[in-house]
C-alpha cells in the first residue's frame, strides 16, 4: 500500500511538472512554437463528396486553430461504418490520431485498462480557464459524465446530444387516404391498418401487388421496432430498474419486452411483415430500395430517416417514383399500460472523445476541442455559407440548401467535424427551433415538425448513475448485441406455437453468456451507491 501511495505521489508530481511546464508555453492561449496534432474524422464515402481531410470546412478549422492557438491540425480519416474495428486497429498498432472519437465506450474502457488512453481529468481541471467554450457548451454533466467515482479518472468526454429525438413510426399517408382510413392512434388500429394494406395490395400497387410489404423491419429488431416494443414496458418502471436492466441500448432487458416481440411474431405469421428481412445484413440497401420504390406501408426508423439525403432521400424518391402526394408521415400509436405514448429517449450524450496515450500534445488537443465548441465555429460548421449552404427565410429561419462539391457537407450539419455536439445549435433557441424544420432540403417543413413532435412527445430519459466501471461489461458489447439480434430475429420469424420456446431459449443463452452477470453487478454497485 505504502509503495502504491509513494508511486502515485511521484506520478502526480511528475504530472504537475509536466503540466506546469506546458502552462508556461501558452501566451494569450497561443503556443510560442507551432504544435502539430492529428484528429480523427469519419469518412462516409458519400457520392459527390469531398475529401473529408481536406476541404473548405477543414481549411476553416485549420486556419482558425493556427491563428488562435498556433496549432497545426491534420485529419486522419476512418470509415464511418466500421469505425469501432478501425479505431481498434489504430489503437492496437499505436498509430491512432491524437484526438479520437467513437460511439463505443467499452472500446475506450478496454484500452484505458491497458494504459492506452490518457486520463483527461488533470487537464480538464488545470486548464479550465483556457477552455471556456468547451465548458459552456457541454457543461460539467457531459464533461464528467464518465468520471470514475473512486479515482476521478476521465477517459472520455461525452459530446452533447442537442437533438433528443430518436425514433419514429412512419406510415404512408397517401395509402391511408386511398383506403379512407384514419391515422392510427392505437396499437390495434395500427394492426388493422397493416391488414388493410395487405388485403388491398392490388388497389395500392397494381401490377406490383406481389411486392407489397405492409410493415418493413430489419435484423436490428430492437431499434427498428422500438416504439412498439417499449410500449409494453410498464409505466411504473423505476429509474433503478431501468439502470439495472439498461446495459443493452435496444432496451432488450426492460421488463415485459417479450410481449412486444410476441406481437411482431404474430404480425410476421399474418404476413404483415417483410418476409425476408432477416437474411439481409447491416448496410444492405434492399429494404431502402423497397421503401423508395413505394412498396412499403409502414416502418420504424431514425426519427428523420425518410427526410435525410436531399435528392436521394426516401421523401424525394417517393415523389419521383410514385407521385406528388406519396409521402410518409410520423404517427404515434403505441400506448403503454397507462395509456401514454411513452418513448425512451437517449441521455444528452453522443460521441465519446478521447486521447490515446500516444498523444504527445494533450493541451493543444484540448484547445482544439475548445475551438470547435465555440459558438461561431459550431454555427459556421453547421450551416456553412449563406447563399451556398443555406439561405435565410423571410422570418429569419435558416433553410438548408443542396450544395455540391467543393461546398458540400459530407455529413449533415457537418456533424463529423463538430465532434462535441450532435444536432442543430444556433445559440438562439427560437432561431434553432425555427431552422430545424428547414434543415432538410427537398422536404416541406410540416413533415419535419410533426416528426420531431412525435418522436419526443411523452419521452422519458433514464437516470444516470455515476458508478465505478462495471467489469462484467468489458468486451461483451458486441458478442451480446449479436446474440440479441440473432434470437430476436429467430423469435419473430418462428411459427406462433414455437415463439415461447425460441424466445426463452435465446434469452436464457443471452443471460448465461454474460447478460445476467452484468445485471447482477449493476444491481450490486447501485445498491452500494445508496448506502
Amino acid at each position, binding site marked *: 500500500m505504502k509503495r502504491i501511495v509513494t508511486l502515485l505521489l511521484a506520478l502526480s508530481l511528475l504530472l504537475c511538472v509536466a503540466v506546469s511546464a506546458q502552462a508556461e508555453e501558452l501566451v494569450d492561449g497561443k503556443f510560442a512554437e507551432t504544435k502539430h496534432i492529428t484528429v480523427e474524422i469519419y469518412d462516409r464515402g458519400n457520392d459527390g463528396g469531398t475529401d473529408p481531410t481536406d476541404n473548405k470546412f477543414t481549411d476553416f478549422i485549420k486556419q482558425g486553430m493556427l491563428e488562435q492557438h498556433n496549432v497545426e491540425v491534420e485529419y486522419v480519416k476512418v470509415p464511418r461504418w466500421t469505425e469501432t474495428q478501425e479505431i481498434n486497429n489504430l*489503437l492496437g498498432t499505436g498509430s491512432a490520431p491524437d484526438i479520437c472519437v467513437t460511439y463505443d465506450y467499452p472500446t475506450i474502457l478496454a484500452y484505458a485498462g491497458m494504459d492506452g488512453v490518457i486520463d483527461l481529468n488533470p487537464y480538464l481541471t488545470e486548464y479550465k480557464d483556457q477552455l471556456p467554450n468547451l465548458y459552456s457548451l457541454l457543461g460539467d454533466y457531459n464533461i464528467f459524465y464518465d468520471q470514475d467515482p473512486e479515482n476521478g479518472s476521465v477517459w472520455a468526454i461525452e459530446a452533447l446530444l442537442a437533438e433528443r429525438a430518436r425514433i419514429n413510426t412512419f406510415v404512408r399517408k397517401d395509402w391511408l387516404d386511398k383506403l379512407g382510413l384514419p391515422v392510427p392512434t392505437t396499437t390495434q388500429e395500427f394492426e388493422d391498418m397493416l391488414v388493410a394494406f395487405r388485403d388491398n395490395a392490388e388497389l395500392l400497387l397494381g401490377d406490383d401487388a406481389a411486392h407489397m410489404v405492409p410493415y418493413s423491419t430489419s435484423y436490428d429488431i430492437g431499434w427498428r421496432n422500438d416504439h412498439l416494443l417499449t410500449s409494453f414496458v410498464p409505466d411504473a418502471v423505476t429509474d433503478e430498474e431501468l439502470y439495472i436492466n439498461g446495459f443493452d441500448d435496444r432496451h432488450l432487458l426492460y421488463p415485459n419486452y417479450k410481449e412486444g416481440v410476441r406481437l411482431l411474431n404474430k404480425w410476421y405469421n399474418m404476413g404483415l411483415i417483410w418476409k425476408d428481412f432477416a*437474411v439481409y445484413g447491416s448496410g444492405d440497401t434492399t429494404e431502402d430500395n423497397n421503401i423508395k420504390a413505394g412498396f412499403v406501408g409502414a416502418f420504424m426508423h431514425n426519427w428523420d430517416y425518410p427526410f435525410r439525403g436531399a435528392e436521394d432521400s426516401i421523401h424525394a424518391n417517393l415523389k419521383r417514383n410514385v407521385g406528388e402526394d406519396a409521402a410518409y408521415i410520423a404517427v404515434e400509436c403505441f400506448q403503454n399500460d397507462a395509456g401514454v405514448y411513452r418513448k425512451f429517449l437517449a441521455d444528452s450524450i453522443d460521441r465519446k472523445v478521447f486521447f490515446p496515450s500516444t498523444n504527445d500534445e494533450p493541451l493543444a488537443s484540448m484547445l482544439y476541442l475548445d475551438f470547435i465548441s465555440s459558438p461561431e465555429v459550431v454555427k459556421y460548421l453547421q450551416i456553412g455559407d449563406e447563399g451556398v449552404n443555406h439561405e435565410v427565410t423571410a422570418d429569419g429561419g435558416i433553410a438548408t440548401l443542396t450544395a455540391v462539391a467543393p461546398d458540400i457537407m459530407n455529413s449533415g450539419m457537418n456533424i463529423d467535424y463538430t465532434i462535441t455536439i450532435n444536432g442543430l445549435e444556433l445559440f438562439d433557441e427560437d432561431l434553432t427551433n425555427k431552422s430545424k424544420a428547414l434543415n432538410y432540403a427537398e422536404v416541406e417543413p410540416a413533415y419535419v415538425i410533426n416528426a420531431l413532435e412525435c418522436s419526443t412527445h411523452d419521452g422519458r430519459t433514464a437516470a444516470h448513475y455515476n458508478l465505478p466501471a462495471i467489469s462484467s461489461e468489458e468486451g461483451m458489447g458486441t458478442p451480446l448485441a449479436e446474440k440479441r439480434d440473432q434470437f430476436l430475429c429467430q423469435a419473430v420469424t418462428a411459427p406462433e406455437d414455437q415463439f415461447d420456446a425460441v424466445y426463452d431459449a435465446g434469452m436464457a443463452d443471452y443471460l448465461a*453468456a454474460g447478460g445476467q452477470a452484468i445485471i447482477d453487478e449493476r444491481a450490486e454497485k447501485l445498491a452500494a451507491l445508496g448506502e
Partner: protein
Amino acid sequence: MKDIQPALSRQTPVTSGRMSWKQYMRRFGALYVMMLLPLVFFAVFRYAPMIYILQAFKQNNIIKPLFQIPWAKNHGMEWFIKAFKNRDFLYALRNTLTLNLLDLVIGFPAPIIMALVLNELTFKRFKRVTQTIVYLPHFLSWIIISGLALRLLAPNDGLINIVLANMGMEPIHFLDKPGNWVWTYVALGVWKECGWNTIIYLAALTGISPELYEAAAVDGAGRFRRIWHVTLPGLRPTIITLLIMNLGHILGSEFDRPYALSNKLVTSVSNTISIFVYQYGLRGSQFSLSTAVGLFQSVVGVFFLLGANKIASKFGERGVW
C-alpha cells in the same frame, strides 16, 4: 525414397565427403546464396512473429511491450480455460468441424471428377472453354458471391423462389433454415473452387504416359476401365498430397465465407471459430482470448497434418515430406 536415392547419387557422383569444404562451397555456394532470401523471408515474416503466441498466456494488453505484460491467471492458462468454458466457442468448434468435414467429403472429390470428365472430352476447344468457365468463379470474392446468393436464393425475393412461386410451388428456404443453409454453403464452395482445383489434377494428368492408355486399349479395356486402371493410379500421389494438406485445415476456418453467407437466422450452424475470434477478439478487444483460440486451432491442425502424413506413409505413399 529408396528408388530415388541411387538416381540422385548418379547425377552427383562427387559427394561432399570427398570434397573439401571450400570446393563444396565453390560448387554449390550460389545455390545457398539463392536460398538466403527465402530463408530470411520465412525467418522475419513467419517465425519471428510467432513470439507473439505468448500473448495467449499473458494478460490482455496490446499496448505494452510483450515482455512487460504479466502472465495470465491460472499459470497462464486463463484464456484457454475461458474459451472452453464459453458455449459460443464450443458451438463454433462444432460448426467449424461440421462445415469443414462436409467440404472435405463433397468438395474434395468434386475437382477429381471434373478433371476426369474434362480429360475424356475429345473436342479440345470445348474442353478449353469449359475449363475457363468453371475456374472463373475462383476469382470472385465471397462478398460478391454472397450478394449473388441473396439475389438468387432469398426465401421470397430471390429469383429462384420467384420462379418457383410462379409455377405454384412452395419456396425453398436455401438461406434461412439452418439445415438447408449448410448445403447451400457447401454447394457454393464447390461451385467457386471446383474448377480452380481441377487445374492441379489436369496438370498431373498430362504426366501420364499415353503408352499406358494405348496398352490398356490393346488389352481391350473400355473407357471406364482405362480411367480406373490408368488415370486414377496416375493421379494417386497428387490426390494423397492434397488430401493431407486439406486435413491440416480441418480446424482452420476461413472468415469471409461463413461471415458473408451467414444471416441472423442460421447462426446456430454458421458461427465458426474465425467468427468467434472476430466478435470476441477484434470487436470485443479480447486479444489474449483470440490468440489462445488461434493457437489451439493451429496445434490441432498440426496434429491432423502429422497424423494424416503418417497414415499415408503406412499405406506406402510418399506423403508430403
